[in-house]
């Protein structure tokens, strides 16, 4: 069963809303379900690293709240809610290609196509940027760049790497813009793609999401 990006986005948005509405026990159950789902979809090192990084970040958020004198239970519940929300997005990214998400955002949510394209382009240039940064680091090391010393010293010496890297990125973005112009980038890009049609599974999931989201309203009426 493969859900369309639109359905998955709706579910993620619904989960985000539930996190604030539902009691903490229910939120914890959602978290367990999310983690199980995420590890079912993808259980490689990258996914585990993402969960680990998210856990550390959540811990930092909780600490920060405690520093600002929030009660412990408030800090913990806040951290849990954030963790659940972010894990929902991790599930989305693990299950769907970013291109499909971008298409759904334009097609169904009417996001301007420029912003949707930005999503995919940013991802496209991450590997290139890493390669460039390595090359620049090597080149500057040959010219005497060293990352030794205290934090400030290292920060200022790192500018020697950042500056040429930024210049390269700007030059690349200029070529990219020119290339997009040559290829006629515009509103047609997403308009002419094969539309993402909802299947029976999508309708079912959307219906269940709707029922769960409006559950308290129904219970009150009945």
């Amino acid at each position, binding site marked *: 069963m493969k859900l369309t990006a639109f359905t998955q986005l709706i579910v993620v948005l619904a989960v985000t809303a539930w996190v604030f509405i539902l009691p903490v026990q229910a939120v914890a159950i959602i978290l367990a379900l999310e983690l199980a789902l995420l590890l079912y979809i993808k259980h490689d090192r990258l996914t585990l690293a993402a969960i680990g990084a998210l856990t550390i970040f959540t811990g930092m958020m909780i600490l920060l709240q405690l520093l600002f004198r929030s009660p412990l239970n408030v800090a913990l519940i806040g951290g849990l809610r954030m963790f659940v929300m972010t894990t929902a997005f991790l599930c989305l990214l693990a299950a769907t290609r970013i291109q499909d998400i971008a298409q759904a955002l334009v097609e169904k949510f009417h996001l301007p196509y420029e912003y949707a394209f930005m999503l995919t382009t940013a991802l496209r240039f991450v590997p290139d940027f890493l390669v460039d940064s390595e090359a620049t680091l090597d080149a500057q090391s040959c010219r005497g760049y060293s990352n030794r010393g205290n934090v400030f010293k290292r920060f200022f010496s790192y500018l020697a790497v950042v500056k040429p890297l930024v210049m390269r990125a700007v030059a690349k973005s200029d070529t990219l813009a020119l290339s997009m112009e*040559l290829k006629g980038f515009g509103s047609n890009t997403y308009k002419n793609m094969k539309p993402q049609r909802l299947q029976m599974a999508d309708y079912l999931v959307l219906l269940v999401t709707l029922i769960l989201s409006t559950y308290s309203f129904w219970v009150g009426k009945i």
Partner: protein
Amino acid sequence: MSEAVIKFKDFHFAYLNSEVVLHDINMEIRPGSFTVLAGHSGAGKTTLCKAMAGIIPHYYGGRYAGDVEVLGESTQGKKVADLAMDLGLMLEDYESQLVSLTAGEEIAFGLLNHGFNPDEVELRTKKALEDVGLPGRENYQLDELSGGQRQRLLLASLLAVHPKILILDEPVSAMDPQGALSLYKLLNKIYQEYKMTIVVVEHNINFVLPYVTDLVVVEEGRIAAQGAFATAAKQVYEQENLRHMLPALWQIKFNLEDKFHLSLGAWRSEDEGLAEISKKFERVVVER
């Protein structure tokens, strides 16, 4: 001679806040030709290519005079994307010209933008990948492809719109000789199959010698030589500062012609040259 596919008429150009980089360009590219555009670094070759694609002056701005015609129509007032339907341009930094995440999407990108329906896009994508020797790679992520494969992918994305003219700006500048020869072999195959006009910016004409039909040499923003390869090569040979641009084989050929007052053929390979030399000099020895 049928009408030129690209025609420069008294064209001058200067980038914003810069000196004039192209002076009085009068140049024609014949339909169906395989033209090599040569010249020293900074001579204006890339600017000339961008002017052919309509990018100059419409995209970069700047000052210009004269006109550039592509397929009989002036590039003035034409959108760069519309021109790109007839004229594909591969820039030197081809890596940054790739905009999508997978090979299939890269080719589909331009086609979808130009309003082709998804089924047609699928067909053309498949064919274009086959043409450049990357069949079945539609779902490959760009980082799964090598540098050479990425270049072929860009070539495929240009071919997919079936342009009449293909312009490549120093396509082999970062390649080893074997890779360069292989790319030009592929380009020649495409040239033969699609019967298109090809313009290549190349410093090392040795690579394209078997395929080239026409030559244009640019020197300090001016046309120093142009025409059918044999004629233009002779013009280049006569200018001592440009002579080194010619393939070594043709420098030998012109030297021999000068020294022995011979008329030698248009050599495309060393074997061809050697065969003719052996034949001519054997005769000379026999006559003596």
